[in-house]
């Protein structure tokens, strides 16, 4: 669960690096759920400088290469102007039930936030 937007806080970076290490260690990351300002991880409109990491593109790559389900909470997204039109590749918008559902289905849930 990622509760902060990219760049302002380290939360998105920590969550991404944790996911990558888990996958490299042979674990499965079933889903990353983006909530609160975390939904801002899903906008395709970010253009970070060349010498900075691209937080959004990294998530997209994780989804494409490892089948990680990137879910953005619809209610939190609507509040913050994240809609289908500006959604980056690999993300989908869905309900909060997806968070509860993955907490039930997964062995562990780790919250990254502020």
């Amino acid at each position, binding site marked *: 669960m990622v509760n902060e937007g990219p760049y302002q806080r380290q939360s998105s970076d920590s969550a991404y690096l944790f996911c990558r290490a888990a996958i*490299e260690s042979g674990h499965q990351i079933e889903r990353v759920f983006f909530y609160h300002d975390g939904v801002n991880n899903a906008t395709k409109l970010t253009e970070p400088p060349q010498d900075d990491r691209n937080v959004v593109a990294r998530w997209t790559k994780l989804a494409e290469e490892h089948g990680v389900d990137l879910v953005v909470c619809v209610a939190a997204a609507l509040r913050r102007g994240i809609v289908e039109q500006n959604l980056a590749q690999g993300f989908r918008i869905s309900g909060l039930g997806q968070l509860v559902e993955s907490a039930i289905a997964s062995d562990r849930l780790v919250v990254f936030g502020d």
Partner: protein
Amino acid sequence: MLHIVNKSPGERATLDSCLAHVRPGHSVLLIEDAVYAATKGHAAAAKIQAALATAKVFVLAADLEARARAGAVIDGVVQVDYKGFVELVTQNPRVQSWL
């Protein structure tokens, strides 16, 4: 149980909140700005030292290195990489992030 703290004790009281709920055998992992708490001479280091009596304390090496504090970790605190972070999550049946 694994407790994760990510804020500097100079900014927030989350380390105190966490430590008040650490039971014997628990693990505490300091990440992001919380890594400063486990460095020599820091005002919060005594609290970490006290926690070490009954719990294990880990610190994320990547965050220490980024902050130029990797050489200053207090004795008894174990540095882990991201894979070590993953192992802590798998070894402990539950995780609480003190945000």
